[in-house]
């Protein structure tokens, strides 16, 4: 297993050169696929805003221009007077060098804006995802082991309900109860934002303050993600529990608990691992609604705010970053799966 972790095809002196080579080919194929997806996203990104019906200058600057001169100037600034292929080349050059345009609202480069807003999103979604994975996998295991018993029914029904719930609605309910306070419930958490204004950045209090502000959003997102993991862990563990090798393990005299822990669970974790890796890519887009209702200044809020202007360059930039994240995570998931399950390297 460990031999497949390295992927350099030249060093074929290990114990399993063939496996190594096949993994290298697998990696190569996946890399090409990811590059293809990236190219596709770039093309979509370009054409979405330019080949739509109507004059892009008017669409992009909707209602902002009173005179022809202003329109002309806008066109010249954004290179909209050039022929389409030329525009595409310029777009590619700009995007690949990290130039995502200037925000119509903030008047600063979109790339800087995105970098600025990345941290709160990563903090929020990263924490939630970690919690959701651990709790979700655990719940899924409990459910599968007690299939059909009350525990299973309670957990499966709760996760299904969570799965059917718009996560932001859950957030609204939490705000209305434990943040604002309703009836006998005191409002103990802030209703939104990432920090109080009166706490100095850099102090320990600041960290505590951030944690206090993030508690409700993290709980909401954790509950939203958790359902997915619990359901998939339960079903893949149930799949494994019916397999012959478990009967063999039991026949060898291993105790039930050992069979489950050392034989069934590692195999059942495969689909969950993929799901976790895939979901990593939705870090950027996953928090859009939660950031909106809790007004956390992350990428999601940036996108929804841009919507009301509409600030096309910001929308385009966040879309690009979000897609790139998904593609990267997808690649990661595939590579990981290739290591964990050698059968997929065909």
């Amino acid at each position, binding site marked *: 297993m460990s031999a497949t972790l390295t992927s350099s095809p030249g060093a074929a002196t290990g114990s399993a050169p063939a496996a190594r080579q096949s993994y290298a080919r697998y990696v190569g194929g996946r890399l090409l*696929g990811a590059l*293809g*997806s990236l190219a*596709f*996203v770039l093309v*979509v990104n370009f054409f*979405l*805003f330019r080949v*739509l019906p109507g004059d892009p200058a008017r*669409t992009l600057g909707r209602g902002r221009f009173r005179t022809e001169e202003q329109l002309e100037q806008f066109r010249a600034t954004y290179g909209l007077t050039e022929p389409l292929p030329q525009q595409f080349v310029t777009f590619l050059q700009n995007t690949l060098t990290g130039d995502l345009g200037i925000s119509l609202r903030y008047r600063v480069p979109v790339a800087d804006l995105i970098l600025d807003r990345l941290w709160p999103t990563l903090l929020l979604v990263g924490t939630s995802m970690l919690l959701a994975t651990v709790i979700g996998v655990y719940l899924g295991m409990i459910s599968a082991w007690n*299939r059909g018993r009350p525990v299973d029914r309670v957990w499966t029904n709760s996760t*299904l*309900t969570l*799965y*059917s*719930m*718009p996560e*932001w*609605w859950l957030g*609204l*309910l939490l*705000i*209305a109860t434990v*943040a*604002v306070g*309703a009836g006998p419930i005191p409002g103990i958490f802030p*209703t939104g934002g990432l920090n109080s204004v009166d706490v100095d950045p850099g102090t320990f209090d600041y960290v505590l303050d951030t944690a206090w502000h993030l508690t409700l959003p993290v709980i909401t997102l954790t509950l939203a993600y958790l359902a997915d993991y619990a359901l998939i862990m339960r*079903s893949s563990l*149930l799949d494994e529990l*019916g397999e012959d090798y478990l009967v063999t393990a039991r026949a060898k005299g291993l105790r039930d608990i050992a069979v489950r822990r050392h034989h069934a669970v590692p195999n059942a974790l495969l689909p969950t691992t993929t799901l976790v890796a895939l979901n990593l*890519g*939705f870090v*950027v*887009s996953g928090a*859009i*609604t939660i950031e*909106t*209702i809790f007004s956390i200044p992350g990428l999601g809020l940036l*996108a*929804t705010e841009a*919507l*009301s202007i*509409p600030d*096309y360059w910001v*929308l*385009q930039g*966040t*879309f690009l970053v*979000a*897609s790139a*994240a*998904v*593609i990267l995570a*997808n690649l990661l998931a595939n590579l990981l799966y290739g290591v964990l399950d050698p059968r997929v390297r065909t």
Partner: protein
Amino acid sequence: MSSASAPLSARQIARRRRGRALRRTWAEFRRHRSGVVGLVVLTAFVLMAVFASLLVDPEGLEVTKATGGVLEGPSGQFPLGTDDNGRSVLTLLIYGARISLFVGLLATAISMVIGTLMGLMSGFFEGWPSAILFRVTEWFLVIPFLPLALVLASVLGRSLWNIALVIGVTSWPGTALLIRSQTLSIKERPYLDRARVLGAGRWHLMSRHILPNVMPMVLANTTLTVAIAILTETTLSFLGLGDPTRVSWGSMLEDAFTVGAMTTGAWWFIVPPGVCVVLVVLAFTLVGQSLEEIFNPRLRRR
């Protein structure tokens, strides 16, 4: 059963066979308690949406004819209170069912047509056409849905049709992959070789042999997709991308959020629309899961 005196035509035989299969599926379905519960809930909501105008006066939707106060609590006249315009929340809720279900079903139809076609073709063809179709499916699979929906909705404008289009265009890859794998496995079965040897063309094979075998999975998947589509419609409307002139559960929640119903304690404006969404989505999911279990023997032992 087989006491027919006159020989039956091929069509009659096929109809009888289908009738029997349908009855068998129904008998099987009735044994899934959660599926039956889901179906009952769904029927209730569909009836509510269809007969909305019999249940409540459609004039209650017009802001200018609103009779209640601003965000009034539940009372005898307004069982679920009023919204920020003085309209009865119950009226909005009943009419909202129409929009939410309509958009959900329309989006699912779009997604199913694209997904089934792409899946069938990429599974049935061989060589580069199949590879290209598969690649395209993968591309759409990685597009992050919500950011794209934001971009599309902002470019296309805000309307019911656009929301359905956006959901449909972004949600088909999962279906396509499912149908593709199903097609690939059916394609290898001997009876297809037999049909081919008998001179069946591609179209015949696809429409008469593969599609009918894939259909049950499509049906189960459709039900699950409706659930996701309704959930997405609610989210998009909540973000303000829905048709501003129509009331859906999502747009009600958007309204509630904008006027700060959570901070003023107007729970009757937040809780009911969300509960409706959860009930409908859960119902579709339960029905879909039961169908999946019936049509996919691998899942049956769960």
